[in-house]
């Protein structure tokens, strides 16, 4: 398993640049792919697709409801539209379009949620997104994927395009550590055990995967053997894997760049309480808005640091051992 991840983790690289490159590669492979933006293509790097395929790129202006609706029309015509704007705008301003036409009516539209989590750090809470997973997870028929590094973007994008039905996926704005080796071959809907361990399982998504790995390596020096699972697909949740981890390690920590309410932690919590109740600690943004500031410092302040995962793990182990 550990052959899937770099040790030590690789240098931080731009996830949105990887996304732009992956879009171009996808555009070369599939001529049915079209890309739309609500005038933020220079932010999310879909401009790279526009530069190569100008006739397959549509900027609808700062109009997120129309962004989704125009994509719905393109999907009706057999295209594979990938719509781009900031994650929070999909989850809030354009939500009714997503619910009615993608979730209810099945429009085959892919939503690329840029600047996810706290990654638009300096722009502050108006631009940060810590509730999107909870919002979309409550809607039927949508698949939700959270990408962990640049290689993950390249591995997932062709799958997302080929997936039958709507997909919402999250991309971080900033440079993130390279996590995976070339052996990384993820499949939508199937969690991946990255590090084996029997004391506790840390289930993470997105940028928190790198942090979970670092936490596990730290914990191993304390003779705590933490299993690390990447749960890139939040919906449908790989509940078989979650349940197996609960049975085998009897303690779970979740880690996500999202509110502890309703996202990965919420999904795992629901799964555990039905299938295998064991102690659970959720690492994520508490029920609050954050603030502006440097990204890495913001992550620390709002409880998303490596040490926060280590502390949560120690807490959950204490609960496990006292029960």
């Amino acid at each position, binding site marked *: 398993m550990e052959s899937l991840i770099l040790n030590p983790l690789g240098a931080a690289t731009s996830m949105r640049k990887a996304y732009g490159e992956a879009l171009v590669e996808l555009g070369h492979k599939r001529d049915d792919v*079209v890309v739309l933006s609500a005038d933020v293509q220079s932010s999310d790097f879909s401009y790279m697709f526009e530069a190569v395929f100008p006739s397959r790129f549509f900027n609808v*202006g700062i109009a997120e409801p*129309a962004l989704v*609706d125009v994509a719905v029309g393109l999907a009706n015509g057999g*295209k594979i539209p990938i719509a781009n704007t900031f994650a929070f705008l999909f989850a809030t301003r354009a939500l009714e379009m997503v619910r009615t*036409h993608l979730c209810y*009516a*099945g429009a085959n539209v892919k939503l690329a949620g840029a600047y996810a989590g706290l990654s638009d750090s300096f722009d502050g809470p108006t631009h940060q997104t810590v509730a999107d997973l909870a919002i979309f997870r409550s809607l039927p028929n949508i698949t939700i994927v959270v990408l962990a590094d640049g290689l993950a973007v390249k591995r997932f994008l062709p799958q997302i395009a080929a997936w039958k039905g709507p997909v919402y996926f999250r991309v971080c704005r900033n440079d993130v550590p390279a996590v995976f080796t070339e052996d990384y071959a993820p499949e939508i809907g199937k969690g991946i055990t990255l590090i084996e361990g029997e004391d506790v399982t840390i289930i993470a998504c997105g940028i928190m995967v790198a942090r979970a790995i670092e936490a596990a390596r730290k914990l191993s020096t304390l003779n705590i053997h933490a299993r690390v699972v990447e749960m890139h697909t939040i919906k449908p949740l790989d509940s078989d894997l979650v349940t197996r981890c609960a049975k085998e390690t009897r303690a779970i920590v979740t880690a996500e760049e999202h509110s502890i309410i309703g996202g990965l932690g919420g999904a795992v919590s629901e799964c555990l309480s039905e299938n295998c109740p064991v102690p659970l600690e959720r690492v994520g943004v508490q029920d609050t808005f954050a603030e502006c500031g440097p990204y890495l410092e913001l992550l620390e302040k709002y409880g998303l640091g490596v040490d926060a995962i280590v502390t949560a793990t120690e807490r959950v182990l204490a609960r496990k051992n006292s029960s």
Partner: protein
Amino acid sequence: MTVSSPAPAGPALVYPYGTRHTQEMVADLSCRAWEYRAQVLRMVYGRQSGHIGGAFSIAEILTCLVFHQLRLDPNNPQWPDRDRLVFSKGHACAMLYTVLAHRGFFPVSELPTFRALNTRLQGHPEPLKTPGVEVAAGPLGHGVAIGAGMALAARMEGSRRKIYAILGDGELNSGVIWEGLMVGAKFSLDNLVAIVDYNGVQQTGTTHHVMPTEPIADKWRSFNWHVIEIHGHNVAEILMALDLADEVHGRPVVIIARTTKGKGVSFMENVPAWHGGVPTSAQFDAALAELEDGAAQWKA
């Protein structure tokens, strides 16, 4: 409560795109619009639920589109190069279902299941369930932007198929409508035709009272759409406007059709309560009699 059964309908005559607009064709389509109103009345009365007013105002326009203008194949509803009908004013779907059924997309005998449990004919349109329905609607305002996306897809393929989006006038209150207008004009979508069922009445009052929309034609013109204004219950005018829309190049077209909400039943016309009102038994009988008279005037 007694609901008279729908008039037995054989396969209805179709006037393929390009058919000359003879007086007989105009009379036949007009007559059918009246008969379809009677069908909608039966459906809403039978279920004690539904929207009559906006269904009645769109009767002639939908009949002209589905029996003449649109290139469709009821035996192959997903034919990729079909013309697209975006029924944006989804609450009036009893009329959409009636017209689609008579065009052969599903049995006319299924119409009484409208809004029942387990029906394919949902309370508002649902494309995964109902053959011939292209998009979900009910939450208002989606038609123009979705139609623009359909028009872009058609153009990318070099297809000559056209997109027709039917809007209510109350629906124009919604902001995303105007986002869609800008998209249509930006991309010069002359394969997109919006039709506004301008009946002047919405749920709680007149459009003038709720949210003044005039000068409506000037608004669309200022968004760089080509505007055609017609009387929306006059089949000859509707057919002519649809032909004229085909002659416009380089910009999208809107047909503003002046109509009457509740058209054809004297006590329903222009009365906001009939947006979603359900008739009593006596009202049902009186309404049916008026609609049958309306149809009879076209049967020479």
